[in-house]
Every structure is written in C-alpha cells, then in structure tokens.
C-alpha cells in the first residue's frame, strides 16, 4: 500500500495536530519551565488544524487505503473537537497558573487527546476506532490527574483509568467478535455484509459490547458512574474538555457505527439505545437536582445531555444524525463556557465549588453572571439559545421514528432540568451574597467564553448555519 499525495492533503488536519503535538513535546523536553511556549505552540497547532478542517470540510474521501475517512462528517467533528480544545487551552492557562500547576505537558496532552478524537471521527476501520479511543483515553487519564499533589485529582484519574480500562476491554472484545463473524475490520466491507451478519447472535453481541464501551465514553446510564467523581476531581477546564470533546468523539463513533455502518433503525439495538437514552435523561436530571457541588451538578447534567443526544442516535434517521451533530456543537459551546466560568470562580484548595458560592454573583460580576445565565438557559433548552434547537431536532427525530414516548420523556426531564439550571440563576441574581472572583479574569479567557456565549445565541437564532450544512454528510 503506497501513500499518495491526496492521502496527505485530505488528512492534513490530523497530521497538523499530531506534528504540533510532537514538536511541542520535543520543545518541552528540551526547554525547562517554559509552559508559555507550549501554550503558544499548542494554540498555533489547534488553529492550523482548525483552518485545514474548514478547508477540507466539503470533500469527504477515504484515505490511507480505507483506514480513514476525511472531510465531510469527519471534518465537522474535527471542528467540534478543535473548538473545544481551543477554548480549553485558552481557559486553562489562567486556571493552572492560579492553581500553581502550570506545566507544559498539559497542552501536549490536550493535543494528543484531540488527535485521538479526530482518529475516532475519521475512522473507517475498527482498528482505527480502537487506536483513536485509546489515544484519547490515555491522554485524558493523565489530564484528570494533572493536579498530582491533590488527592481528589489522583482519585479522579485512578477511577477513570480503572473503569476506562474495562470499557476498552469490552470494546476490543466486541471488535474481535465482529471480526470473527465478518472476517474484516474494514467498516465499508462490514457495511456491505451487514444485512447477512446481523442475524448472527455473535455479531449482535459484538455490536452490544461496542455499545457498552461507547456508552461508557459518552457517560450514558448505566455506564455513567465514573462521571461525577472524575469531573469533580479533574482540573475544571479538563472536566469541560472531557464533557464536550470526549463526549462528542464517543457520539461521532456512535453515529459512525450504529447509524452508518449498521442500520439499526427499527431493530432491537435501536430499542436498547432508546432505553439507555431515557434512563440517562431521567437519572441524570433527577440526580442533578440533589447536588450541592456545581461540578457534580454539571456532571449529572452532562449525563442527561448524553441521553438527549442518544435519542437522536436511537431514532437512527437523517434527522437524528443531523440533530446529534448540531447538538454536539451547541453543547460544546455551552458546556465549555459553563465549566470555564466555574474555573474562574473556583479558588485554591477546592474552595468556592458549591452552588451557594454563586449567591450574589450577578451584583458583583455582571458580565460573568450574564454569560453563565446564557449557558444555563441554553442547557435548559430555552429558546432563543442553541440548546433549544438541538433538543427540537432530536425530539423531532424521535417522533419521526415512532418513538414519541422518548420525546415525551425528553421534554418532561427538560422541565426537571430547568429547575436546577435556574437555581443557579436564582442564586446569582435573586439572592444576596458575596460571591466574587478573586483575581480578574484574563482577557483572552473572557473573550473566548463571551464568543462561546455569542455563538450559543447565534446558533439558536440561525441554526441553519450548521443544520443545512450537516445534511450533506449523510452518506459515506
């Protein structure tokens, strides 16, 4: 198999991010205590890759002998991962400096995690899927434990690693079974013979095992247990990164495997995913009400949002796919933004992390509180913010797939979610308190979060900017 120039051109976003990751690694190893250099290099790397992703967005082609598929769907997903990485890097610099943990490895790990995600979204072979998941997960295990002197952070990393290792086992076993039946790991070939193999129970079990692994990565019920503990212990910007980019990567693979390669519409797999979706929406939202820590609340909220997106996957129609793709982008902006604000309010030694610590923020930090309010309203799915349109689309998909019950569960749990999202707004604006930010927020971070909020509004009012584009990605 020879590498052609078109392989290199179309996979340039992926190549760019890996090259910059390696370069930064070398620079970091040579130089001492210069995290700022890694910061700038990673920013340049992410931006370059982002620009290249935009350039190749239209052209969807298989590359490297059908190991990868670049452009189109993969390009769109790359944009989500890279935006999330960009925002996380911008937020992390100030945060890490304040927490006295500013080291260059952080940025390198973010770049590697991102390249893993990009492999997942662009995979056209089960081996590539596995490679991507591992690259992403290993980087995230380390990132979760980045505050190595803090017990919580270590606990977070260990939990994530142990449970994640199990999930990897499930994934590999599933891949093995599917390979055993179909005789190939090439997804296009599996797709061709899918109709025959799906009648084989072993193939089905293989699909089920992959479903478990992906549900774990997406933090869907009943594989969600790790999320609250890990998000709570991980550095706050990392929690934001995990809940958006890593989740998006899991969903990209979900769509790839279950909507495009398998056509699960009307099958028992679709029913199983629908139940996982409903359980995630109910459990995530109900449990979130009882949380006093804002990071745990956002963790449960993230479980619930996995449920909303899974409704789109379960519906397994074009609307579902477009809905999930839109939802992922919207969710990335609002959740990275929300975690960003949490990271500003947070103080050293895990102080200022309860909901009560936000009482009166609106009076003292009007801009920050207003941004947070926008993210909360959007997460609750109130128009005119993007979160609403995401929900509209996935519920539409569910209704269209004759799963109206799923849409009804979805709207009723949205009502529950409105309660706890609004509680934060209540605390910030309606209550007296002395919530404040101890150090002024770095301008770059503030601009980044404000831009995210603006995009949440823009995508809410003009969803067609994205939706009409993603409709073109249907077929591989």
């Amino acid at each position, binding site marked *: 198999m020879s590498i052609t120039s078109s392989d290199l051109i179309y996979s340039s976003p992926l190549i760019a991010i890996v090259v910059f990751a390696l370069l930064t690694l070398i620079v970091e190893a040579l130089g001492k205590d210069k995290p700022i250099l890694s910061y700038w290099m990673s920013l340049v790397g992410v931006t370059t890759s982002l620009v290249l992703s935009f350039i190749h967005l239209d052209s969807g082609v298989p590359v490297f002998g059908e190991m990868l598929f670049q452009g189109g769907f993969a390009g769109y997903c790359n944009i989500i991962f890279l935006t999330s990485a960009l925002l996380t890097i911008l937020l992390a610099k100030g945060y890490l400096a304040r927490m006295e943990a500013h080291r260059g490895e952080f940025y390198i790990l973010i770049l590697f995690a991102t390249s893993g995600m990009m492999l997942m979204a662009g995979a056209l072979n089960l081996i590539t899927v596995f490679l991507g998941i591992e690259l992403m997960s290993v980087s995230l295990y380390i990132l979760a434990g980045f505050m190595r002197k803090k017990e919580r952070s270590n606990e977070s990393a260990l939990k994530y690693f142990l449970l994640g290792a199990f999930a990897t086992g499930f994934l590999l076993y599933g891949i093995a079974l599917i390979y055993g039946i179909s005789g190939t790991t090439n997804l296009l070939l599996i797709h061709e013979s899918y109709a025959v193999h799906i009648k084989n129970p072993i193939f089905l079990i293989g699909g089920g095992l992959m479903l478990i692994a992906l549900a774990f990565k997406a933090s869907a019920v009943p594989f969600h247990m790790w999320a609250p503990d890990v998000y709570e212990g991980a550095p706050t910007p990392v929690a934001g990164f995990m809940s958006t980019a890593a989740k998006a990567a899991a969903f990209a693979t979900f769509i790839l495997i279950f909507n495009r390669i398998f056509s699960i519409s009307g099958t028992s797999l679709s029913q199983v995913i629908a139940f996982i979706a409903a359980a995630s929406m109910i459990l995530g939202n109900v449990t979130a009400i009882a949380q006093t820590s804002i990071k745990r609340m956002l963790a449960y909220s993230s479980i619930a949002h996995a449920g909303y997106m899974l409704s789109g996957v379960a519906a397994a129609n074009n609307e579902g796919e477009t809905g999930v793709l839109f939802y992922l982008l919207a969710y990335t902006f609002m959740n990275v933004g929300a975690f960003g604000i949490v990271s500003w309010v947070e103080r050293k030694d895990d102080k200022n992390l309860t909901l009560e610590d936000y009482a009166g923020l609106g009076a003292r930090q009007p801009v920050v509180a207003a941004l947070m309010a926008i993210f909360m309203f959007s997460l609750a799915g*109130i*128009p005119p913010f993007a979160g609403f349109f995401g929900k*509209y689309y996935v519920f539409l998909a569910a209704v269209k797939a004759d799963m109206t019950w799923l849409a009804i569960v979805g709207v009723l749990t*949205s009502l529950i979610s409105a309660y706890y999202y609004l509680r934060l707004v*209540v605390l910030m604006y*309606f209550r007296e308190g002395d919530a404040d930010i101890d150090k002024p927020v770095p301008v770059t971070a503030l601009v980044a979060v404000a831009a995210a909020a603006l995009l949440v509004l823009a995508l809410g009012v003009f969803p067609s900017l994205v939706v009409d584009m993603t409709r073109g990605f249907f077929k591989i």
Partner: protein
Amino acid sequence: MVFEHILSITIFFPLLGVLALFLVNKENAPLIKLIGLLTSALTFVISLILYFRFDAAGSGFQFREYAVWVKSLNIGYYVGIDGMSLLLIVLTTFLTPIALLGTWNSIEHKLRGYTIMVLLLEVGMVGVFASLDLFLFYMFWEAMLIPMYFIIGIWGGQNRIYAAIKFFLFTLFGSLLMLVAILALGYFASTLPDGYFTTNLVQLYAVGPRMALTLQSWLFLAFALSFAIKVPLFPFHTWLPDAHVQAPTAGSVLLAGVLLKMGTYGLIRFCLPLFPHAALKFVPLLGILAVIGIIYGALVAMVQTDLKKLVAYSSVSHLGFVVLGIFAMTEEGIQGAIIQMVNHGLSTGALFLIVGMIYDRAHTRTISDFGGVAKVMPVYATFFLIVSLSSIGIPGLNGFVGEFLILLGSFKSTVLASPAYAVLASSGVILAAVYLLWAYQRMMFGKVREDGLYGGHKLTDINGREIVSLALLVVFIVWIGVYPGTFLSKSAPMARQLVQGMEGIRQGVMIRTTENRDAQSSLPR
C-alpha cells in the same frame, strides 16, 4: 419598502431601545427611563400604522412576510396578522409605555436591567401574536419567559423567588408538551401524500382536520394544556396569584394585560382551527372548567385581604368568560372573547396600576389598612371607581360589551347546547360587583384615619404623570363601552370565518376557506 416590513419592524423595534440602553451609563436613571418610554411609545406609533393600514374587509392574514429560516425543516420566518392579532398587538404596544409611565419611580435599583427586560418582553409578546409559523411562535412564546422570570425574581416582593420559579416551571411544563405536539403535527403533515415536515401554520390549517380523532384529541389536549396554564384556566391557575402578588407593578400590568391573553389567543388561533373535531369533542370539558373558573375565581377574590391578590383572582374569573366565549363557537362568542381580551387588558392593567400607586404611597396593600381614602385622594378614587365599574361590566363601559356578547353567544350556542353555562357564568358578573365594590367601599369610604397615616405614611393624591397613564386607559375603556364597533369590525371577518369553518366541520363538510386556498397557491415550498 418600509411598509412591506412594517410588521417585523413593530416586533423588533424595542430591540433598538435595548441596544441603546447597553450604551447608557447604568446610573443615569432619567435617561434610562426616557429611552424606555420613548422606545415603547414609538413602537406603539409604528403599530398604529398597522392599525390604520389594516384592511378590515379583507380576509386572511395581512402584512405577511416570509423568509426561509431553516430550509431542511421547512421552518420559515413567517409573520402576518388578522383582526384578532392586530387588536392584541396594539394592546401590547399601548400597555407597555403606560406600564413604564405609571410606575415611573417604583423601581429604584438596577433600573437599566429592568427597562431592558420590559423591552425584551415586549418583543416576545408582539412576536407571539404575529407568528404564523409554529416554530417561530414557540420561540417567542418560550423566550418571553426569560425576561418575565427576571422581572418577577429581581424586582418582585418578599416571596419573589418562589413565585418566579413557579411561574417559569408551570408555563414550561405546558409549553414542552405543546412542543411534542407541534412535532407530531408537523410529522403528520409529512405522512400525507406529497407531504413534507412543516410548521407553517397556514399550511397546517389544511392538514390538521385530516387527522384521525384520537391523534387530534391528544394534540388538542397538549396544546390546550399549555394555553390553559397560561390563561390560566381552573385548575391550572395556582401560579397566577403568586406571580401577580410578587411581581412589580409594571410586571403585573403586562402579565395580566398581555401574557394571559396569549393563552386565550392560542386557543382561538391554534386549538380550534388545527384540531376542530377534537375541539368539538372537548367543548363540555372546557366549558365546565371555564364556568368553574368564573365562579371560583370570583368567590376567592371576595375573601382576599390583599387588594393585589383580589385583582389577581378576578383575572381568573374574567378569563373564564373569555374561554367560555371561545368554546361557544358562535360569532358573538368569539367576537366577545376577542374584545374581552382587550377589555381585560385595559381594566385589569389599570387596576394593577391603581394598586401599585397606593402601594408606592402606603407600602401596604391590605384592604383593612385603608378607609376614607376618597377624601384624601379624590382624583385617585375617581379613577379607581371608573376602572372598577368597567371591570364589573357596567353598561357604557367596556367590560359590559365583552361579557354581554359572550353570554349572548353562549346562550345561543348550539355547540354548548345548554343555557346552563350562560346562566351560571352570569353569576360571575354579580359576584364581580360584590368583591370589587365591597373592596372599594372599605378602602375609599368610611372614616379617614385619625392620624391621617396609612401604613405609617401620609397619602398624597396622584400626580400628573399618574393621571395621564390612567386617563389614557380610561379613554379606551369608555370608547369600547360606547362604540365598540371601531374595534369589533376589525376582528369580525376572522371570527365569522372561524365560526363558519367550525360549523362546516360539524356538518361533516370541509369548507375550503380562503386560508386553505392560500396554502396551496401562494407559499414557497
């Protein structure tokens, strides 16, 4: 060019004020008030262009504007108005500046945020009445919750947080089920031959009646629940007294004056024409709930000790009339319901202003804290009397016209098929006289307090600004009372068309109305 987009300009004009307010120093109270008043007054002037250019004889929706919004889901920015929406839009743009003017000095902190919220609320309210696309409608309907939530939660009374959350969650509950119903309706459209998913109301008018009765019934109930909570219809009214009592005066004025109308507007605009068979099936249910609301609201109002709560419960009673008129499905009933929405906006808006004015002075609203106020505040007492009489429904003032038409319509109605509804409902008129005049008597007449202090404060009569805001309302209270034809003529064609359509459904014949023909000819796919 300008006139082509006059409706959109009306909807979004207040946003200019919002932008301007962002540029103003937040300590500069006089300028903030001026911008708020000027913007809302200009919006009213613009909406008058709509009023005068509206062709009362024409049928269907006028001032239509269509733009593709989300192509893949056939969502359009589609607005247009008929007589009913026209009246309600003008009511909204009229009440907003009056609410701001009437509560000029009531808000002392975070004035800029408050004015921004009121203007955003106005955008949402006008947008709801102008939307001809269910998606667009839903956007405005829900987005409006946010400013109202802040108005109650930040500038409200003692128990404001509870009231704000209750208001938000109650309304959201209804809306979310309506959202599923909207999706199901659009999906049904796509299952028809040559059909596609759409939320275009005018197209859906032709689609809805083709649904099987069971599906229609479910969707009707989902829509009706959402609207019944907003109206609020008994037994979904419990959020209203909390929200009203806690909201600041301008919030109450807009809440009672406009927000509640959205529920009854929705029943007429969506529930009847989209699900006619189901609507006919559920007439007894809605009729009975309306009558219970009329009597229950009035009885509870009677025993209130807090004047604001009394007015709040009187709303439950008055809007029961509107719902009864709607489900009478006669021309008189629908026309009465529409004009009664306007009337209620004017009189209850005025009543809340009146409550706010005395509260600003005495810092209490408890009826028994007052007595003999008429001697201290004669001008105030006069306005209070006129507005009370209007709310009771004395001939010559606006309330009479609406209630009379509604009662007449429900007597004649073959859909309600029993005079019992009208007979029971008319007791609401008597009860209204009891609770309002009794409260008036206890507060305004009797002996003046010996120390001249009410709630520890000395009362002064209302000033010129307050007189102007009330007088503007009274002008229309009298106008509608004496010559309602000015306004009734605007909504007559749509009421007639709606009633004919419903009659056609009853006879089992689909009457192809003008709207249906429009749907097939004039709309871009």
